[in-house]
């Protein structure tokens, strides 16, 4: 069984970020692997450990995004692919899905496991958009996966904690939810060994995706970023911890009495 897991190096906005004329200073960002991808990587590793095969991790990102790939390799993924061209900076989920679709055509995995969403943009769209482009069956927001021959049985999360158990045929795509498993940690030796594992860097052109196609595929363009309007906002409780707690005690006593 061959599993392809697209991962993302997600941005974390620093406390003292700089925003000027609607443009964010890139130095205001820290990077870490997208929380949801910890679970999709783990799900892929477990399936392949049980059934044999290969886990390929892929990302659409610049050199810094290799951290996410190396982390997955250290946990046991077999090889990694990074696709990049500077025109992909700020790419929207549909453009990313378009690039990933070209990679899936080349790799022909049995299963693609994406995260439900990314922690920075939270579009919750790339995986299902990719399945659409491939015309593959898919299920979004999955919390358990079983493979039996050529079919999958998955538990799809619903609102309020309910779930729907579904069966579908391979090849398929699933978006994996947090809590689906317990992601492993890589030990130091594995982290070192991961440096020897293959990490291929390709540009979209090599996968047959040119700039015009990317522009057509993109679903949106960023005009500007702004700090949110806070509306009425919260009344700020002033003072040190002692004063803050004192005010909380007062508010609670008053509200609970009414």
């Amino acid at each position, binding site marked *: 069984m061959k599993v392809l897991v697209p991962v993302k190096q997600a941005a974390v906005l620093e406390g003292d970020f700089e925003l000027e004329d609607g443009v964010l200073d890139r130095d205001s960002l820290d990077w870490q692997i997208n929380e949801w991808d910890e679970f999709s990587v783990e799900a892929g590793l477990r399936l392949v450990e049980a059934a044999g095969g290969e886990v390929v991790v892929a990302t659409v990102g610049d050199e810094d995004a290799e951290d996410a790939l190396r982390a997955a390799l250290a946990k046991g993924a077999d090889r990694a692919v990074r696709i990049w061209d500077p025109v992909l900076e700020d790419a929207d989920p549909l453009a990313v899905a378009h690039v990933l679709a070209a990679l899936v055509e080349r790799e022909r995995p049995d299963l693609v496991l994406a995260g439900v969403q990314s922690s920075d943009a939270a579009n919750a769209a790339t995986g299902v958009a990719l399945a659409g482009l491939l015309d593959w069956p898919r299920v979004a927001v999955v919390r358990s996966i079983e493979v039996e021959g050529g079919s999958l049985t998955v538990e799809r999360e619903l609102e309020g904690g309910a779930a729907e158990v579904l069966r579908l045929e391979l090849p398929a795509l699933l978006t994996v939810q947090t809590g689906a498993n317990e992601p492993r940690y890589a030990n130091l030796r594995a982290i070192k060994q991961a440096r020897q594992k293959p990490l291929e860097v390709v540009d979209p052109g090599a996968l047959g995706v040119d700039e015009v196609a990317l522009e057509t595929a993109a679903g949106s363009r960023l005009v500007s970023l702004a700090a949110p309007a806070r509306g009425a906002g919260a009344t700020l409780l002033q003072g040190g911890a002692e004063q803050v707690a*004192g005010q909380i005690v007062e*508010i609670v006593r008053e509200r609970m009495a009414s």
Partner: protein
Amino acid sequence: MSDGVLVAGEVTRQGLRPGTAELIAAGVKLKEEGAGSLTVALIDVEADAHVDAVNLAGVDEVLTIGAVPERFEAHVAQAALETLIEQRRPRIVLAGHTFASLGFMPAVAARGSHGFASDATAVSCGPDGIRARRGAYGDRLVAELEFPGKDTVVVLLREGAFEPAEGAGSAAVEAVALEIADRARTERIELRDPPAGDVDITAADFLLAIGRGVEEEEQVAEFEELAGRMGATLSASRPLVDAGWISRDRQVGQSGTTVTPKVYLALGISGAVQHLAGMSKAKTIIAVNSDADAPIFSVAHYGAVADLYEVADELRRQFDE
């Protein structure tokens, strides 16, 4: 040229999703801004039963697509929307940013090379064309998006972003026959209710809620003790439940429980939209977070930019008195 607004309403087993009236409100606004006529489509075996509820002031046309499987099936829904978009060429398609639509709307947008924005909090149609707004970097900033060169733009709206539309309308109603019932690609084996738990957090008047600001599993017991001392019930955000530190019946949010206590005291919770969905209607919300930009402060009535451990220690002391 494309024209008009197509609202994809959502019918669940509980009936018409309340958010549908919010989508219609957004559609009425876009219509007033010149986006064209407003059509509401209901794709469900029981679509006919909900026609009156979506025939609201400003709606020009209601379409019912009833020849579909009895349960929601994402690939069938995709085929329905694709066919409707092809036949009617709307300028804007509106749907909710819900569990159901996440299973197919991104596929519709990608396959049609349409414009696309999910979890949008605003949408407009003006001299600059169609624009949408959505959160960025964990809702700590707001992004404005444009859709150059797109005939059709698909926008998934965050629930609560618009006040629901009201007032009876006079729309033309049409049952549309689409050959899509056989497009299902998943088979339902079972529907599972949420596991029954020991605690009913909806019954509590005072909830102490802890989030990922709490760093160690061992500390959860200390907060449980604090909750007891304050007369509160302990609840949590999802990551603590996912990690197995606290039971699922105590999870607040979209995929957990929706609560409306008299007081909700949140310690170390950032305020992700899925968490807010479960607690924003609490009567009094007090948030303690060390990050002044945390989105939880936008729904809180009282906020303290402070370390949760220091505040918790003081609460422990002061509730003893």
